[in-house]
């Protein structure tokens, strides 16, 4: 703990000290910085383009990034335990391919969607078992899963398959009106519901506390008698499930399955989680922070679209730079506390 340079005798001093403590805490600091960043990015957009800070633009952020929010939720669980999941992009692509090919073969949506969620959860289970039972590093195990999922995409079909199933088309076209000229899609509702569930699970259940405990110190968690092994496997199942769900939402968005979709999405998801203030070594972080991270990435993307002259590959560079800044911020904040 650092000592305040002046004695916080006055009320104002105490408040200032309190604010500084919150900003420099590894738990809340990065999230607050992200929140301020989001406001700044929005202000930049608003000052440059008329109609940037408006209902439709903000809602579109959610519509365009619903699947990324879902991915980031799953990734948050994994990163909170100190692991990483590189397979999510490939699993999204695999889900779109399974959906598109089975719907083309005449299966009903009511069977296909649960099937996808089960398949991706089982894949997550296998990854979790490799990590927990065989002590394989999470990034190698999920790398294998990534190869497998991408490979299976190619095996299903090399070409893009479009989806004409009435249920999927209906969900893709449904708009839930929210007042004047504003609407959201069912995907946004699903994503927000998932975020709420994840928040409850992380903060009000034993599973959630164990996830944080593993990230803090796996050894201590084990000595406290927490179900470390089970939880370590479960986070990969959760991430697999979220990837499957994100894949389904992605098909609602694009109405097609293609084996090369979502290349590099795992990086976006990881970046969103890190920017959202989750410590890469685990233990600290919030689902809501990850949502903020997704929104920051989405807003930058929107600004680049609004700009028109800036090419889309600037997005990648910006994401890289933001990632760097936040990792260094994490480093500084955790170093101060030690």
């Amino acid at each position: 703990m650092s000592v305040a340079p002046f004695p916080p005798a006055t009320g104002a001093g105490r408040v200032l000290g309190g604010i500084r403590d919150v900003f420099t805490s590894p738990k809340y600091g990065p999230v607050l910085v992200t929140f301020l960043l989001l406001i700044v990015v929005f202000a930049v957009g608003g000052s440059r383009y008329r109609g940037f800070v408006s209902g439709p633009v903000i809602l579109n952020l959610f519509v365009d990034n619903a699947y990324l929010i879902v991915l980031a939720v799953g990734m948050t669980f994994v990163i909170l335990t100190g692991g990483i999941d590189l397979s999510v992009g490939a699993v999204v692509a695999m889900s779109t391919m399974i959906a598109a090919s089975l719907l083309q073969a005449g299966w009903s949506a009511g069977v296909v969607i649960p099937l996808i969620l089960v398949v991706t959860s089982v894949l997550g289970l296998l990854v979790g078992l490799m990590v927990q039972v065989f002590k394989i590093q999470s990034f190698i195990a999920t790398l294998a899963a990534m190869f497998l999922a991408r490979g299976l995409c190619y095996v299903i079909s090399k070409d893009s398959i479009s989806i004409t199933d009435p249920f999927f088309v209906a969900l893709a076209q449904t708009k839930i009106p929210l007042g004047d000229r504003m609407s959201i899609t069912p995907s946004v509702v699903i994503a927000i519901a998932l975020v709420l569930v994840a928040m409850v699970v992380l903060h009000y259940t034993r599973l959630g506390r164990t996830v944080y405990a593993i990230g803090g110190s796996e050894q201590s968690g084990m000595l406290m008698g927490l179900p470390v092994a089970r939880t370590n496997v479960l986070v990969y199942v959760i991430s697999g499930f979220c990837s499957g769900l994100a894949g389904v939402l992605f098909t609602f968005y694009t109405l097609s399955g293609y084996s090369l979709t979502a290349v590099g999405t795992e990086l976006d998801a990881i970046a969103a989680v890190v920017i959202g203030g989750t410590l890469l070594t685990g233990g600290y972080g919030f689902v809501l922070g990850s949502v903020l991270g997704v929104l920051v990435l989405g807003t930058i993307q929107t600004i680049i679209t609004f700009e028109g002259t800036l090419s889309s590959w600037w997005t990648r560079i910006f994401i890289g730079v933001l990632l760097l800044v936040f990792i260094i911020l994490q480093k500084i904040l955790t170093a101060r506390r030690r």
Partner: protein
Amino acid sequence: MNRIFASRLFWPVVMLLALFIVNLIAFPGFFSIELKNEHLFGSLIDIVRNGAPTLIIAIGMTLVIATRGIDLSVGAICAIAGAVACSIILGSPDPGSVGTVVVAIVVAMVISLVLGVWNGFLVAVLGIQPIIATLILMTAGRGVAMLITEGQILTVNSPPFKVLGSGFLFGLPVATVIAVAIFVLAALLTRRTALGLLIESVGINPEASRQAGVRSRGLLFAVYTFCAFCAAVAGLILTSNQTAADANNTGLFIELDAILAVVIGGTSLMGGRYSLLGTLVGALVIQTLVTTVYTVGIPPIATMVFKAAVVTVVCLLQSPTTNAAFARWRTSLSSRTRKGVAA
């Protein structure tokens, strides 16, 4: 000593031989090598030529992994090196001259070395976990390559540049000769000097090696820079082979192949002891696997599924849990036979 060496290379070599046999059954002329126009041709030559970029990167990756690190940015560095070289060649008044190509290659190498130093800085000075530190360049690097190529696929028509990817030297493909040269260089530098020992000590226990007076910071800078150097060479070979720089696809997933080669070669991802010879065999296994998929007649698009299977099997074989289970099984087996003898 000899026995330890043999046991480490045992499984990778068995895997390679098994793949050779499968190939030989599917395609009897697999081992034949012909001499046409003083150039060697044959399936084996194809393997050592097409596998050269992966091998080159895997050599750099081996040293990085030996320090308990990882470099995910090699694919992006490949793309950047190719993009820089091609844009210089295209921008020059005389794309066919040897001078232009040399300048292009030197500039591409220098830029890549800077990127390697950057990775080294993040890992050694800022102390960021290697996966994450190199993830930054992996994400941003392709964007940078896109900026250099301005989003285009740069096609170059420069005979001297083409030599790198599809030329021949002493009857062997130039790419293979370069790969062998880098392999020999790395082996001599790290195994004929104490360098290899120091790298391993940093990987086994960073704190202990620091207290023993090993300057880990400089070593980390060196291995990440060397890895970027290897990635740039591989990127130039790939670009030259395709005669085009494609910021999106040059070296895509090559980091995974390189890591896979290292892992198959028996170098543990936990750092420490490494085997360059193992990596060589590992790279050959991967390239032979790709060739096998073609010769056996499996659709080439399924290659990734096979790679996934190989990674999984190799990791499971190397896992401490499996080893412990094997050891238990062996002791129970031997105790049972002893009991049998006693009875």
